[in-house]
């Protein structure tokens, strides 16, 4: 399939899925793995990783939150000197934040290292934690994606939605104010992306589950702007953004009396499809909203029959 004959040695990465990749974000995990395979990159899942604790641990016990990530960083170091690819933005930020705070604050370092030692866990090392957007943009590159694409995009215009924690506060997946990497990667496979000023506005994260009306409202604002900018679908890079934008459209339809049926895709699904990946292995059957459009855009006539 993928012809990685570009002369360079096969790059290998460690992969940190995180809890959502087994549940609501399963399509993200599937498409990241498929895309990496098509690009001839090796990914190996980090053995026995634990949950990052997300915002909940930070809200209860900061040190415990750092300890959770410290164990993961220790496992990553033991697994060899490879970059750790982390698609979930909550996991990504928790790992990065732990590294930064341990470096900046001697008191935190002491506590975290002490806790690992107490439990017989080897110390953490200098592991490079990376978001797939950064890996695809910096290691693979727009040109290689363009060269390897076997299908040309025939779907509608897309709005690229970057969300929050992969860009803030550390601005490593892309720059914090006007990120463009996802736009550039998708343009390389023929997608027209619209100018989208809300690309880094927060989706509210878990607010849709806790203070529901506020959470839904934030997502309504984002989708409204998507429509206003003339985009027919959204490309995301976070499982929580994807879920929030995808799952509550029927509710918005009832409340705002507006018809939203917008496919919410992962950018890795689109790239994977362009590189020849098939519908199911990219998790494209897992969308809730805009299923008709997804069917039209990503399938050959034969596959449509099996899908509908």
């Amino acid at each position: 399939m993928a012809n990685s004959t570009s002369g360079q040695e096969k790059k290998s990465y460690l992969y940190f899925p995180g809890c959502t990749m087994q549940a609501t974000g399963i399509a993200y995990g599937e498409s990241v793995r498929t895309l990496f395979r098509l690009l001839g990159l090796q990914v190996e899942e980090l053995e026995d990783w634990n949950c990052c604790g997300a915002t909940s641990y930070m809200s209860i016990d900061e040190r415990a939150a750092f300890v959770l990530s410290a164990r993961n960083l220790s496992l990553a170091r033991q697994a060899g000197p490879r970059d750790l690819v982390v698609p979930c933005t909550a996991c990504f930020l928790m790992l990065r934040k732990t590294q930064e705070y341990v470096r900046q604050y001697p008191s935190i370092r002491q506590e975290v290292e002490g806790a690992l030692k107490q439990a017989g866990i080897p110390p953490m090392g200098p592991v490079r934690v990376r978001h797939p957007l950064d890996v695809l943009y910096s290691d693979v590159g727009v040109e290689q994606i363009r060269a390897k694409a076997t299908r040309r995009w025939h779907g509608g215009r897309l709005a690229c939605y970057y969300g929050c924690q992969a860009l803030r506060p550390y601005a490593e997946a892309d720059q914090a104010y006007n990120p463009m990497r996802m736009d550039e990667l998708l343009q390389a496979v023929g997608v027209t992306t619209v100018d989208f000023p809300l690309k880094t506005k927060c989706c509210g994260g878990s607010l849709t589950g806790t203070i529901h009306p506020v959470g839904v409202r934030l997502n309504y604002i984002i989708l409204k702007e998507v429509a206003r900018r003339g985009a027919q679908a959204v490309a995301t890079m976070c499982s929580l953004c994807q879920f929030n934008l995808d799952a509550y459209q029927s509710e918005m339809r009832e409340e705002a009396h507006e018809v939203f049926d917008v496919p919410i895709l992962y950018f890795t699904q689109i790239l994977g499809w362009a590189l020849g990946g098939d519908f199911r292995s990219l998790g494209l059957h897992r969308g809730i909203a805009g299923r008709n459009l997804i069917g039209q855009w990503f399938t050959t006539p034969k596959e449509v029959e099996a899908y509908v």
Partner: protein
Amino acid sequence: MLGIYKQEAYERHLRFQRDADPTWGRKITALPGCEGILTCMQCGTCSAACPLSVYMDYTPRRIIATVREGFREDVLRSQTIWLCASCYACRVRCPREINITDVMYALKREAIRNRMYPPHFPIPILARAFFDMVKRRGRSTEFWLVLRMALRSNPLILLGMAKTGWHLWRTGRLSLGYEKIRGVGELQKALASPREEV
């Protein structure tokens, strides 16, 4: 849920300096990530950047000022700390590079520790359920978390969630798994190791 604060909002009393506890303000300012509070120039950029400030009773700018003065009750009983979605928009825009998100986290922790939130308020319940689940198994499953949160806050919200649940089930995105990592013993040991008092 938030309506609980309504009456207070209408009867807001004047603050007197004697209500303040400057020691508390200094304690928060000394926490890792919260050092910047003292340098805040009250420009309001954080409030402008915050996607949730329109729903907040105290904007992020005002939280910083109120913490600095030491009005503990006002801050910890505000809706703001619960509405903060930890999106870091304020943080990257603040001209003084103040870590407002971390201040919000510190306030959430203190409010949860002291049970300063309305009864059946879902956010602390969710955080607590999440905390316990990961401590026991090393992983979390959204389905069981949401179920626990709903049962302990307001089971009626499950009705509203049923449709979303059905969509997730239909698309194979609802995991009922109850995974446990092999290293859960060492993880628990690390979490339980003695700490310095904060």
